[in-house]
């Protein structure tokens, strides 16, 4: 039985924390979303610039902001790199495991960082289509696991806080 707590970080996480790619807020993004909560200790904001081609939308640029641990910053940075140049449909298919893997394998205690990043991306993609009042067939009605997890984290902390959660 192995019960020792593994290292929280990988060299790749440190590298991206030190030099994050695609950092910063985007002016007038075509889609944007946020996931997580300050009370939980992690928030990812994602901004997408989308080029509309012939019946496909391609992510031309992606940027992020992150409040959270070094793995949170690295996961958001890695995700933006992974989705640039992808169609929205391709980007929708990116799973949190791929993000965790690209970071050199995140230990269990840090996996929620990659789940949160994917949750933010899927929210942004939904927001993009909702804003345009259309829904492609490949976009599921039901929330996916990553979206649910982001929502759960946000709701959980609100329950834990009760009346103490400041809204400001």
């Amino acid at each position, binding site marked *: 039985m192995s019960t020792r*707590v593994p*290292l*929280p*970080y*990988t*060299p*790749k996480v*440190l*590298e991206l*924390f*030190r030099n*994050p790619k695609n*950092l*910063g*807020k985007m002016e007038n993004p075509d889609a944007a979303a*946020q996931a997580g909560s*300050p*009370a*939980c*200790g*992690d*928030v990812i*904001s994602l901004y997408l610039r989308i080029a509309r081609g012939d019946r496909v939308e391609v992510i031309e640029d992606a940027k992020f*902001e*992150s*409040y*959270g*641990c*070094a793995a*949170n*910053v690295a996961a958001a940075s890695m995700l933006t790199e992974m989705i640039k140049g992808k169609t929205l449909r391709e980007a929708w298919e990116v799973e949190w495991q791929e993000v965790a893997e690209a970071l050199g394998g995140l230990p269990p*205690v840090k996996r929620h960082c990659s789940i949160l990043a994917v949750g933010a991306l899927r929210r942004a993609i939904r927001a993009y289509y909702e804003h345009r009042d259309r829904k492609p067939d490949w976009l599921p009605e039901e929330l996916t696991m990553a979206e649910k997890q982001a929502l759960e984290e946000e709701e959980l*902390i609100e329950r834990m*806080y009760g009346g*103490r959660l*400041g809204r400001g």
Partner: protein
Amino acid sequence: MTSDVRRLLEAHGRAEREVYMDNENSGQVPPEVVEAMLPYFNQVGYGHPSITNRPGWEAFEVVQETAEAVARTIGADPEDVHFTHSGTEANNLAILGVARANRSRGRKIVVSAVEHLSVILPAESLEDAGFKVVRAPVDEEGFVDQDVLAELVDRETVLVSVQTVNHEIGTIQRVRGLSEVVRDKNADVIFHTDACDAYGRVRIDADAMGVDMITLSSHKILGPKGVGVLYVADGVRVEPVLRGALSSQPLWPGVENVPAMAGFKRAIELAFEDFDGANGRVSGLRDRLMDSILDRVPDALLNGPRGEERVSDNLNVSFLHVEGEALTVELSMRGVYVSSGSACTSRILEPSHVMLAIGRRYEEAHGSILFRLTRYHTRDDVDYVARQVPEAVERLRRISPLGKG
């Protein structure tokens, strides 16, 4: 094959200048302390302190002299000084040992809400055995109020545990007043104080403080890791928690860590030889660091009290809109070594219970950073940290979506 840790360290690199201020969690042992330990690995006293041969007796001499050194500095009898292998073990012994030995007298335990987890968790583990555990609340600076504590103590109460100094925010509790009101309510209560973060910085005296049990730890006064102390006043019944073979410590089996005790004894001598002078200098440096950080960094909150009721070497600040673990890593890459009360750091995804007990909101707790200085720090060290912290916070605030209006 290169291990994961080695690769991580290589990716981290080493800053040109390093200042270690995580002395709360552990730290560098001064050379004269290491020197005091070395003979006991293989020259003298390498035997078992309970065995009847010369190296054993040499080892026993170390145990005895260390007990005497401890006793002198806490106003106790050396016979009442019991060694464990850590402060955590001593706290577990205090809580579990007293509860089990005195259960016929009552089943209520009162601990302050800001105790170290090595007090709170053993206490709460007794709930399965029918004990009622109450956490005494604290005010926003971490103080337990006398009247509030007295209110919680009743005829059923066997044990009250309130630390002398808080390990995160440096609050010096008014232990004497607390033990008095507790005894007024119930003269039979056993009063324990975890003094790990007070020892060497605040004067400890068992009688003057009116306490029955005191926990101390070697590595909190720049001694080596591996020695804890539980002082137990004569007449207090404590049941052993661990069972094992012979030891000169009836309350805690396992061969004594004799080299570490020799180091602990030297660390005690060093801590007490210029007690007031050294603590005065440390608190001066701490104030310089505190003022500098609070002046230079907007949206920074001091956690814990100011002035005489804060221990000399502690500084704890919450930096809003940044997460503490990220800040410890950012500072680490800049050669500044500190720790955080954030949820991430705890690895159970709950922020520090101390921060929550003093009324900090979750996001304020997540951004808390603990600095603990020692008498070896210089003004240059403090000024280096005071320059790095604002830059590190500023960089993480640029990354963060929070606090931007």
